[in-house]
């Protein structure tokens, strides 16, 4: 039982933090948002730092790091509100390493690691909302080299119009399976910005050539979701840490009635409650990442617990930070509104608080605790 970071991990944190501070100032981010929400140049910089290959096995040209390192990186990216969807690389690395045949692995993982290929999970369908087992896309055996053809419409694929390939759940003979679909004939996209400034796309697959990764699609998708939850939990901790910091700074600077507003007890207690929510969230972010390698049942329960706590924390910290800033809290100019919007979007990513409360409720056992 040990929550200290290793020297390696601290060095990694430091490297990412330095890049965020130097290379990703708020003005650059603003320009990227205005240009659509995704920047290939940034992606290349992340690759140069090794981050796109962070969790890719060393044999596949990655760094072979694990969940804790991914958490450290995501937290620092959160501090900078970095828009580019690095979590997608983590998900793709794990799914391809876990399910792809050696040749496929060799084709894609090194390119993923080097940042040459952006592989996005394309799972969101209209009828599903947050349910992973609802899927209308269909695949069937095809005559091309890929083996299958896949059809269906997926929404909100992160940076989907910039992706080079997609991980796509689809029905195969009625069962949920997971496919890799390289971008090509039969793939059409339409990109748009999202509320936090990042980029997503609708992706239409029309008899697109697809390679089967696994017939156990739901298990793979649950794993992807849990990796996603751990990623955004860490990212959100980074965001909230900064949110609290700028709020504290504002309260200590801003004067009303001749005194800093940090002197008002009602506001001080609000800050104490924000600190509480931040530390609970940080605790559950650790928990989430450390449970990623647990058996599937235990992992699933743990990650839903984490998302519930994160949901409460993100909402409270985001809303209160805006409130405590007063008028400037709702302007586009000050960064706190951007923190708030990001935290809002994260609540609705990979299942919202009520959804995961339902998961926790359905999965309750007689005993409970961190180790259960």
């Amino acid at each position: 039982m040990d929550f200290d970071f290793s020297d390696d991990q601290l060095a990694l944190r430091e490297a990412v933090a330095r890049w965020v501070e130097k290379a990703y100032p708020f003005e650059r981010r603003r320009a990227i948002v205005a240009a659509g929400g995704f920047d290939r140049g940034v992606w290349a910089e992340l690759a140069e730092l090794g981050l796109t290959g962070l969790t890719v096995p060393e044999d596949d040209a990655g760094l072979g790091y694990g969940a804790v390192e991914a958490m450290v990186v995501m937290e620092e990216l959160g501090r900078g509100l970095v828009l580019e969807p690095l979590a997608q690389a983590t998900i793709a690395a794990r799914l391809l390493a876990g399910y792809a045949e050696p040749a496929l692995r060799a084709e894609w993982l090194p390119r993923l690691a080097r940042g040459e290929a952006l592989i996005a999970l394309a799972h969101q369908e209209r009828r599903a909302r947050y349910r992973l087992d609802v899927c209308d896309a269909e695949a069937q055996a095809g005559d091309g080299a890929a083996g299958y053809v896949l059809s269906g419409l997926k929404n909100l694929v992160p940076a989907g119009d910039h992706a080079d390939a997609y991980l796509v759940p689809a029905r195969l003979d009625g069962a949920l399976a997971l496919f890799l679909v390289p971008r090509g004939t039969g793939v059409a996209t339409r990109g748009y910005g999202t509320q936090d400034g990042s980029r997503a796309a609708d992706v239409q697959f029309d008899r697109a050539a697809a390679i089967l990764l696994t017939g156990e699609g739901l298990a793979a998708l649950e794993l992807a979701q849990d990796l996603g939850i751990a990623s955004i939990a860490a990212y959100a901790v980074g965001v909230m840490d900064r949110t609290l910091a700028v709020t504290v700074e504002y309260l200590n600077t801003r004067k009303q009635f001749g005194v800093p507003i940090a002197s008002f007890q009602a506001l001080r207690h609000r800050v104490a409650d924000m600190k509480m929510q931040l530390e609970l969230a940080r605790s559950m972010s650790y928990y989430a990442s450390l449970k990623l390698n647990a058996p599937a049942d235990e992992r699933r329960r743990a990650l839903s617990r984490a998302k519930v706590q994160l949901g409460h924390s993100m909402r409270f910290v985001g809303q209160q930070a805006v409130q405590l800033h007063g008028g400037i809290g709702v302007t586009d100019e000050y960064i706190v509104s951007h923190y708030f919007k990001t935290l809002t979007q994260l609540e609705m990513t990979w299942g919202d608080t009520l959804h995961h409360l339902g998961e926790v409720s359905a999965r309750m056992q007689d005993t409970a605790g961190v180790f259960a």
Partner: protein
Amino acid sequence: MDLAFTPEEQQFREEVRAWVRANLPPDIAHKVHNALTLSRDDMQRWAKILGKKGWLGYGWPKQFGGPGWNAVQKHLFEEECALAGAPRIVPFGPVMVAPVIMAFGTPEQQQRFLPGIASGEVWWSQGYSEPGAGSDLASLKTRAERRGDKYIVNGQKTWTTLGQYGEWIFCLVRTSTEGKPQTGISFLLIDMKSPGVTVRPIRLLDGECEVNEVFFDNVEVPVENLIGEENKGWTYAKHLLSHERTNIADVNRAKRELERLKRIAKTEGVWDDLRFRDQIALLEVDIVALEMLVLRVLSAEKSGKQSLDIAGLLKIRGSEIQQRYSELMMLAAGPYALPLIREAMEAGWQGDAALGALGGFPGGVVANAPLASTYFNMRKTTIYGGSNEVQRNIVAQTVLG
């Protein structure tokens, strides 16, 4: 004690309802019911329709051309407008500055300014807040120096709602630095076309520009634009604030939005999800309780028998409810509230038919387009008009002494 409105009140409601239904342009109602973008023209079109009927100044006494309604009638009018999908009346002219002009203006000022307000012809803005003065309004710094028959105004106002459309602005300005901060403030009407007035829109977190900074650089204002006495502006402003009554709870709008929330929940498939539905049920209880609170205040005003000093509660609760319904609408759509496609918030947006399934709003329900923006925008409601923290101070003062 009786929950029902009197037959006369019900008759009044019927008349208002019939008139509003007949005169509210359907394209405007459609936008309001779906939280689509309202243009300056939309707002002013409705204002002029009301003005023509004599109802834009619906709170005005008869002597100034108003309908002379009592508190209950005003409430019924507001409710019928809200439920029909009328835009909120932009309050700065008819609701805010007009009562001050009526109470403290000269007959000349009344003749000069009130007709343009009553008809909806002239767009007024409010110049109270300043960058350094939020809840502490008395610390304002914009100066007006008397030079002969003119004031020379210098300084800056901020958070001026819809100020980009403003033709006139009523301002609190500092005319003296002696005595307590409150005592040196005057109430001045300023033509926004005067040289030296600059309006700079402030982009808000939802991407819209609903508020502005207004800069005054040696702006010349004739002394006949001073309301009442110099250095007494604080008194007039307080008079104005005391006019913001039950309407700040905005419960009629909340009822309309609760209906919209239920529609959205059905479309999004969460109406039958017990967990989500319970959230709506809780909100429904909150709205009914708020409405009862409003009705109690109205009844007290009507009868004059009891005094209910709970305006602060109405502001706190009303704003919390506005935030909550906008939050639930967004959460109902969930992932499908996340695409930010600004054009889709405009009435009549059809997407790009050439793109087929990819051409519409993601998920296919364009009504989801404005949900997140509205939620973001609503964060202002617990901040403006006296933040909820200030309101709690006031309520506590009333209770604790």
